[in-house]
């Protein structure tokens, strides 16, 4: 090192390592258990998808009935993996950006166990079906767990999230970075959305109208996606990209526009899913409009991030965090464009009830965008909190390529082809409905294939992460890079 190390830099390094050490266990717990749930969810997803074209798969054991496995697959994906990955990123990123070490990591770790326990029991209830002593799956999208689960999850959320809000309140330095806006917004939106959805649909189910409950459910899943998973993933991208490329964010104004357009547009979307149902048509078209307009915040973020990384192709190629983050940003553009296309009122008549019109879109958003960004963050955070480097470059590489191929496969077969071709057959009322079912076969097989890729990738990812938590990673001062190169500084 030619430049002199100032006392300020030393202090910063010490503070950073203190923050990392203080959060090692909660962060690793959320990532590892999240990855384990992801592996479980994907295996359930493969089963569900296989049953959608070969109903005799795994015999006719009711435990693995399509209706139950599908619910368990989505529930574990969202609350097992998605939420926990987000928690890990939120607590670490907020601590780092607020320059405050966590003093309550023991509490967070303990509450994390409750969260996992509730999810495990909830998943068991879904698979056991009606009549099980602890309740059964509800069949309501994104609210599949029996009614007693959501209050537990909400209390756990407050126990986990409150410390990040406090860290923000007592932040050092005063300057608020873009990622912090998104994290604070996500921390603020999640309880409001989660509480609204569950109170209106579950607690006061008998007081309200069933059709409106279905509408609010459609709003709920869209709001969870746009107002919780999306801001967390964007916060991570705004952190990782400048860090790895060593450049400031391209445009602060564009970041502002992206943030506020998401805040203004996001909460309106969702009810286009129940287009044609007997609820006010204003709600349906407002939902469709907002789903199309989501392209604005998505493009603002994507342009900003891509411009920040322009010209740093070698960094994108070498750094696993940046490569996953960039893939996630491409996923964001794809999600926004495909989502807008599927929600256009003219297209909605085909895509609304078509295979994959909703599922494919949600997978594209949750895996192609959110999960890829989270993987990027995990590949960045884990070596810092464990103080070890990733064990195997090969495992990271297989994780990236299998994920990418898998999600592109699903996006193509399920979202585009599945939605429009199946939907077209459904809408052509002069041909018998069975012809629509015949068309389905190719797309369902396509989705199974995609899920197999992704499931293999993530089973190994989970193992890799587990080994890292056991601190079996490489002791090295050099980051794990994806390309072979001759080191300029010989390691003694």
């Amino acid at each position, binding site marked *: 090192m030619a430049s002199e190390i100032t006392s300020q830099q030393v202090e910063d390094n010490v503070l950073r390592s203190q923050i990392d050490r203080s959060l090692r266990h909660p962060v690793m717990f959320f990532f590892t258990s999240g990855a384990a749930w992801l592996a479980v969810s994907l295996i359930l997803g493969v089963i569900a998808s296989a049953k959608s074209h070969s109903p005799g798969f795994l015999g006719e054991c009711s435990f693995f009935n399509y209706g139950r496995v599908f619910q368990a697959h989505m529930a574990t994906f969202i609350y097992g993996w998605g939420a926990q990955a987000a928690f890990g990123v939120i607590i670490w990123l907020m601590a780092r950006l607020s320059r405050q070490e966590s003093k309550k990591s023991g509490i967070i770790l303990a509450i994390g166990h409750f969260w996992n326990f509730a999810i495990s029991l909830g998943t068991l209830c879904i698979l056991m079906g009606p009549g099980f002593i602890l309740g059964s799956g509800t*069949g*309501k999208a994104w609210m599949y767990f029996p009614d007693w689960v959501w209050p537990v999850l909400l209390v756990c959320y407050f126990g986990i999230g409150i410390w990040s809000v406090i860290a923000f309140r007592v932040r050092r330095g005063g300057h608020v970075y873009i990622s912090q806006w998104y994290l604070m917004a996500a921390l603020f939106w999640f309880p409001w959305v989660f509480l609204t959805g569950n109170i209106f649909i579950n607690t006061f189910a008998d007081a309200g109208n069933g059709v409106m409950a279905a509408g609010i459910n459609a709003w709920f899943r869209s709001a969870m996606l746009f107002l919780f998973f999306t801001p967390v993933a964007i916060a991570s991208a705004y952190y990782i990209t400048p860090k790895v490329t060593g450049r400031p964010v391209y445009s602060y104004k564009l970041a502002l526009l992206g943030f506020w357009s998401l805040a203004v547009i996001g909460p309106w979307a969702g009810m286009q899913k129940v287009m044609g149902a007997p609820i006010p048509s204003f709600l349906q078209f407002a939902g469709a409009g907002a789903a199309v307009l989501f392209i604005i915040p998505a493009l603002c973020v994507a342009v900003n991030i891509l411009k920040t990384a322009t010209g740093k192709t070698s960094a994108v190629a070498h750094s696993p965090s940046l490569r996953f983050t960039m893939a996630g940003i491409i996923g964001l553009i794809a999600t926004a464009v495909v989502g807008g296309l599927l929600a256009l009122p003219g297209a909605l008549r085909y895509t609304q*009830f078509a295979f994959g019109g909703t599922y494919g879109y949600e997978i594209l958003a949750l895996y192609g965008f959110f999960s890829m960004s989270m993987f990027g963050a995990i590949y960045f955070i884990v070596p810092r909190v464990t103080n070890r480097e990733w064990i195997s470059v090969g495992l990271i590489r297989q994780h990236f390529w299998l994920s990418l191929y898998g999600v592109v496969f699903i996006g193509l077969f399920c979202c585009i082809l599945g939605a429009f071709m199946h939907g077209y057959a459904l809408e052509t009322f002069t041909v018998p409905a069975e012809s629509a079912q015949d068309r389905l076969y190719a797309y369902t097989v396509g989705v199974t294939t995609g899920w197999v890729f992704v499931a293999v990738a993530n089973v190994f990812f989970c193992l890799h992460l587990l080994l890292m938590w056991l601190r079996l990673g490489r002791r090295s001062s050099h980051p794990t890079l994806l390309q072979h190169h001759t080191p300029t500084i010989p390691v003694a």
Partner: protein
Amino acid sequence: MTVKTFFIGLIASFALPWLAVVAVPYATMRAVEIPQFDLSKDGKEGAYTPVKSGHVTFGSTIYGAEGCAQCHSQLARPTYAGNDLGRPDLAGIAKDPDIGDTRRESNLWDYAGEPFAWIGETRMGPDLGNFGRRMEILALKENKVRAEELGIKVVDLPQAEKFNIVTSVNLHLYDPRIGNYSSICQSNKSLFETKKVYGQGAVNALPIESNDGQQIIPGEKVLTLTSYLLGLKRDGEVPSSINYSRNKKSSK
């Protein structure tokens, strides 16, 4: 941007849509005025009170828990949202010589008694909004054919010879591929019981051969679900104020 303006903006940008698309519609939809028949337009008076039959609330819960809504929708969309009124038997009975045309789009009262309307995720399976009506028509046709075979009138058909709607639905729930080999629907065998036959056996046993004198008998949950499914009859006459049909009778 200060932290204060940030939070004010955050709350304002969320609260407005929250009120507009969630809270206020929820409150107003709780108590929608029941439409009335109009003597001059409908030829009769009184409130619109569609008859609901079957175990609606409990059946609806089982329908959800088994994930039926994942593949079956229950919605006849208006023409601005889809061609459901054109699809035979989805929105009602199309041009039956005896019954006429009963097709119409779904309305709010179709879902009465259900805490959650199963609008549905996909149509990988057929729409079930008028499943009960379709089965009813199927039974009429079957009985007619059977009576013709026996050379008697339909009304004289002995009970044992009649088409049993409940057993037919139970059979589908037991194994959907019995009636339709290419069905991708799930079988719900765990909801049935296999019992040894004593005497004449159970009345509602499924008409399939089983090993060593055993019968397959639908459990309580299957009967509830079947009752719910057979109660799905969302067609027929509606007051002119909510009738959007092209063939609507104009006021005389």
